[in-house]
């Protein structure tokens, strides 16, 4: 008898909760900005990396790893371009998910790690060799930490937006970027050069694309409805 009362009570509570959820103000209509990043001209050729000095890494790569400063794809697309909302963004709660950065086979994975200012970052060494993580920050403090094989991940965070080159002094070919932004609304282009910025309420936005060799480009984009607004970027590539 008592159990029955309790269960109907619980049911009632559940029902109220469900109704509450339904009655909550619907999220404002949100559109998106999508596009492709391409280049014109002749981009520099990426070079094979000689890892002979680090046999434990060299043996992980049957074919030589190429440098990643300018990675191109089909139809002149550009990979690893960070596209983000640089103005017009609504400030939301800070990002709390941990960004993971790996050192694997004496390479940085991903080549470009994007994070919001203040977002936690974890750096892992998956290799059988020691690395030193040396992010060459200028706006944020510059630090340099060793990470021998088997050590726990290094915890870090950056408080100010900045494009920070990352290097390992022991393995000079290792080169990556920490891109610290003042927004959570960003997208890194894949090999086809496409990006997509989602969840944007109608309004005017400044969209910026950053490529480590070719710099930044911005354009104003107005999002009107719930559809996708197109915004393409074209970088002028120089061979050097």
């Amino acid at each position: 008898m008592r159990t029955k009362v309790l269960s109907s009570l619980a049911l009632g509570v559940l029902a109220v909760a469900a109704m509450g959820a339904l009655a909550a103000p619907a999220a404002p209509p949100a559109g998106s900005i999508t596009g492709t990043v391409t280049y014109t001209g002749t981009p520099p050729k990426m070079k094979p990396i000689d890892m002979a000095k680090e046999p434990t890494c060299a043996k992980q790569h049957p074919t030589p790893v190429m440098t990643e400063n300018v990675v191109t794809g089909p139809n002149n697309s550009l990979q690893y371009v960070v596209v983000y909302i640089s103005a017009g963004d609504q400030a939301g709660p800070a990002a709390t998910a941990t960004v993971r950065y790996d050192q694997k086979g004496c390479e940085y994975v991903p080549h470009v790690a994007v994070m919001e200012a203040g977002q936690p970052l974890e750096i892992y060494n998956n290799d059988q060799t020691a690395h030193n993580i040396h992010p060459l920050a200028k706006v944020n403090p510059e630090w340099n930490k060793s990470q021998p094989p088997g050590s726990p991940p290094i915890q870090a965070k950056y408080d100010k937006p900045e494009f920070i080159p990352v290097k390992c002094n022991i393995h000079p070919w290792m080169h990556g970027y920490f891109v610290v932004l003042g927004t959570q609304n960003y997208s890194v282009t894949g090999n086809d050069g496409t990006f997509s910025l989602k969840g944007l309420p109608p309004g005017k936005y400044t969209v910026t694309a950053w490529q480590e060799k070719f710099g930044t480009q911005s354009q104003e984009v107005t999002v009107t409805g719930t559809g996708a607004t197109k915004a393409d970027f074209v970088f002028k590539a120089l061979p050097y």
Partner: protein
Amino acid sequence: MSMRTAGLWCSASLGLLLVAFAAPPAGAQETVVGSVHGNASAGKEHYRRFCVGCHGQAGDGQGENAAWISPKPRDFTAAVFECRSTPTGTLPTDEDLYNSVTRGFVTTNMPPWLPLTQQTRVDAIAYIKTFSPRWKTEKPGTPIVIPPETPADIASILRGRDVFQKMQCWQCHGPAGHGDGPASSTLVDSKGDPIRPYNFSTGTRFKCGTTNRDIYRDFMTGLDGTPMPSFADNITPNEAWDLVHFLRTLQPEVKSPELVVWEAWMPTHASELKPLGPDAGQ
């Protein structure tokens, strides 16, 4: 006579006036070393006389001598300093800067400034701190804790040798500490200028001091702005002392107690040692 006295009085009061207006810029951190308080405006005069030739008027390390100097003079606008008692990525204490100015940097063009009075050196530091806004927004790091030194016996030296291998110090400093490791030829500082790893076999002094505590501090704080990282996350205090004791055995020029222990042990035990470096296997 009276004219002279009047003149003296005039310049004296002018001096007082100058001192009154010479307060450090608002918001800047106060500079204190022991009981000596630094004055940035007074320091500017000293800087212009003693430091500007290399470090430049703007403190950016672009003084007129800079082109002929390697490693390059410190760029104070970046506020990144090698010799600190504070963790990597943090500002040094006033005392750290004072010690650096006083000691100079062996193997560089920075001489010891011991002949300058204590006040002059502290004033110069107060002025150096005006070149970067970091000194207004950040506090110096908390100095690392260095526990009392452990006994420098052969067991400690041998454990330190294992740490040297495990931390791969040889990647830059070479298996014998000659500064000729596999990565040594490619090293650059944070500005992209070539820099050499320390050669223990020819060096008697270290960049950031000469004592065992100074060596301990070097690898637990890292030398910011150079390829030398901090090992604070990877080496325990006991291991750190072991490593210090081993590093002393790489310095034949310094007849340290560690070297005496090592040289007494070696003739009968050399064959027990595993090789160091890339050939030792991981």
